């Protein structure tokens, strides 16, 4: 790949990236969330087109207009969530993308060929079994078999191990090594450092859409890779002065929910910002959702201002003074076709009703107007549709909506994702002010410099487990990223083999798609 660039609206997803893959090599790609890894995959598989640059295969320029074209050229991708057809059987899943065999299916040959491929991989799997009900690991095996059947030359694996158990990871790696022997070029993406160092021949690090470093594994240390991944300066951020810590507001002990997270314990004080750091799949959002009662926790204790509470539903959480600002503005945050005022009043609509149950629009507008001024929402009127606002202003409307519920504890999930620098600074300023007014704030953010700049303490999670809480003095990009990638700070060795690292949350059957 040569000098690839891609822009999405305001974000430069990839900036002048060149990457070389060789046959028979496993090439690991590392990078924080949003570093541009996914965009690269989508360009390679023909889902997106690059704005600039070109892809060369065997020295020939290649235009990949669609997934089918990419497959025809021998480029295939395997995703974290396998893309299988639950109603078709294993053999059909393997050969679904094939075209050359003509329109007529020969079932006997299909089964034999599928069995051959699985035998080559050293896997035993009933090819007549419907794919529904296969474990995620078996589904992934089917995907690999599919790639092989297409005579794949470049195989992209996007976090294939994220939901596998240790044993399954070992199996997968065996398959990957078989492919390497057969001369396939493999691009391997993972957040698990020990896996990368176990299997990769070459390690490349992306940061903010640029390629930072690429080197043979022997020349890379985990410490250096992490340094390359973070490497941004904190100075550009609104720095919150150390705040006065008030009384204890929230105390969480041993919080857990099956198949999501376990044994999470922390305190939040009035006037404190507690940062939640971690990579995708760390299950930070699930903790937030548990505290807001959307997906109630099933173990653990929560004490709010000295009162033990059992949060059952968002309605209950609101009554207790807990508000949650979602990361997903579009789907879960705002009702886009409704006005700013209507959005803000929504959670507390009862307060704006007349005795007959009609909405008092004047009251509603007046309240919205107060927030418009306080948070500097740039809109000509509070009657404007929320969908017409910029991302940053939508974020402020969402904040207003939950502030209007007068919370004691505010959970912010990725409050600055996808908004521009100016709006980001404003949101940071608002967070600082709210904390100064005595609110306890949980700040879930994948933007590491942001977490460091805003938080009094930082809790780090990884795959549903709490890796530690760092004070402001202890928290640096390196210590947090090290913990987020599953390594105790100061422990230099990366000796944990995949086999010694059990995944505490094997995928539950309920995650598989069920027809109603």
């Amino acid at each position: 790949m040569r000098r690839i660039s891609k822009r999405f609206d305001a974000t430069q997803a990839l900036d002048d990236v060149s990457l070389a893959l060789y046959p028979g090599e496993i090439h690991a790609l590392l990078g924080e969330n949003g570093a541009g890894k996914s965009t690269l995959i989508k360009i390679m598989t023909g889902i997106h087109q690059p704005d600039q640059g070109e892809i060369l295969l065997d020295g020939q320029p290649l235009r990949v207009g669609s997934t089918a074209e990419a497959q025809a050229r021998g480029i295939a991708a395997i995703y974290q969530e396998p893309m299988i057809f639950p109603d078709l059987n294993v053999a059909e899943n393997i050969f679904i993308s094939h075209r050359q065999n003509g329109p007529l299916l020969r079932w006997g040959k299909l089964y034999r060929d599928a069995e051959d491929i699985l035998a080559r991989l050293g896997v035993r799997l009933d090819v007549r079994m419907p794919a529904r009900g296969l474990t995620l690991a078996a589904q992934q095996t089917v995907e690999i078999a599919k790639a092989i059947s297409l005579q794949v030359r470049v195989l992209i694996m996007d976090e294939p191990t994220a939901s596998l158990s240790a044993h399954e990871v070992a199996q997968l790696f065996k398959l990957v090594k078989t492919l390497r022997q057969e001369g396939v070029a493999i691009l391997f993406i993972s957040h698990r450092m020990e896996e990368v160092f176990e299997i990769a021949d070459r390690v490349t690090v992306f940061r903010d859409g640029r390629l930072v470093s690429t080197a043979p594994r022997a020349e890379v240390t985990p410490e250096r890779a992490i340094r390359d991944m973070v490497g941004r300066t904190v100075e550009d951020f609104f720095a919150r002065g150390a705040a006065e810590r008030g009384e204890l507001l929230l105390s969480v002990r041993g919080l857990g929910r099956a198949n999501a997270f376990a044994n999470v314990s922390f305190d939040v004080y009035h006037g404190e910002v507690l940062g939640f750091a971690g990579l995708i799949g760390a299950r930070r959002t699930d903790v937030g959702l548990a505290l807001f009662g959307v997906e109630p926790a099933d173990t653990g204790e929560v004490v709010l201002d000295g009162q033990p509470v059992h949060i059952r539903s968002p309605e209950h959480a609101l009554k207790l003074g807990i508000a949650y600002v979602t990361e997903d503005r579009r789907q879960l945050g705002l009702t886009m076709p409704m006005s700013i005022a209507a959005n803000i009043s929504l959670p507390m609509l009862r307060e704006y009703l007349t005795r007959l149950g009609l909405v008092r629009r004047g009251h509603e507008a007046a309240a919205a107007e107060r927030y418009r001024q306080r948070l500097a929402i740039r809109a000509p009127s509070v009657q404007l549709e929320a969908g017409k606002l910029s991302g940053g202003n939508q974020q402020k409307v969402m904040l207003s909506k939950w502030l209007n519920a007068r919370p004691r504890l505010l959970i912010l999930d990725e409050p600055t994702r996808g908004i521009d620098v100016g709006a980001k600074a404003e949101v940071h300023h608002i967070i600082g002010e709210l904390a100064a007014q005595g609110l306890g704030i949980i700040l879930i953010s994948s933007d590491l410099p942001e977490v460091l700049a805003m938080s009094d303490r930082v809790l780090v999670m990884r795959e549903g487990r709490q890796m530690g809480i760092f004070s402001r003095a202890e928290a640096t990009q390196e210590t947090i990223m090290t913990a987020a990638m599953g390594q105790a700070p100061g422990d230099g060795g990366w000796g944990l083999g995949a086999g010694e690292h059990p995944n505490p949350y094997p995928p539950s059957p309920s995650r598989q798609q069920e027809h109603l």
Partner: protein
Amino acid sequence: MRWMTRHVRPEQIRELSLVLLIVMAVLFFGSQIEGYYSARTFNRISTGAAILAVVAVGQTLVVLTRNIDLSVGSIVGFTAYFVGTQIARNNEMTPLLAVLMAIGLGAAMGLINGLLVSYGKVPAIIVTLGTLAIYRTILVDYSGAKTVTTDSLPAWLVNLSSANLFKIGQIEIRVVVAIAVAIVILFQLVLAYLRFGRRLYAIGSNPEAARIAGLPAQRTVLIAYILCGALAGLGGFLFLARFGTITVVAAQGMELEVVAAVVVGGVNIFGGLGTVVGALLGTILINTLEQSLVRWLAISEFWRDAVLGMLILLAVATDAVIINRLRRLWVRSELQPRAESEPMQEQPQRV
């Protein structure tokens, strides 16, 4: 149990249970209605089911892709009326031309549905609800409120519905029934042995994966709609042959019967699951109930729709509960024998 789970799929159990239901319904009505076990009953039900089955086969193709075609009733009515007036005007028209005209007209209307759904990306239920009304309105406008009458049609067409292929005693196997059976067999083979057929299942099973697997999803859905329209067109021709007298409300509400037949026949409304044979069994069950209830209670036409509605709800509910349970049972039995017989082997990669 082990033998059963290896050789029978949960879906086949469902089809078997439909056969059982049909037998039970026949036995029940046989005990309630005097003279129920007669050739007349068989002929009436089989002829009625034949037309419905042809249309239901087309609907099955569409539903498998996680779409729906609500306009089939209007297509049947439109083709029946249009072909009827053409033949009435020109009695010399050959049967082949008349059939081709009906199929072509239906295919054209299916093409419009398919283009809007697959390339226009408008939800299927909206598109076909719209064309349901539009096709019917065009028919009303075209007809000028006139009626096609039996005496204006040539003799071969009028006699077609009562023409027999062969007779077993009093029981007649009519040509119409033979056509329906041929269509069912043909499309069962298409679904099982053609790449196109398997793609219908794949697309309905996981549309996102179909896109990523590089399947020509849009084209496949378009073809499904064209075939559905064409079969509805053929259904229209058979409708014309059976009734002879065609008004502008011909086959109105037939989409309810067709969707009911398909869903009762075990075709999953969310796509990816089901067979043409299942749809045929659904058709037979529904037709048996319809025809027999009318004779048993002398219930009105209006109650018929309520019965259909309840059947749809019942079918979807059993799909949700029973089929899922059966599937879990199947998966579990896959796991156990392995674990027992090969304890020392490398971990087999299965549930």
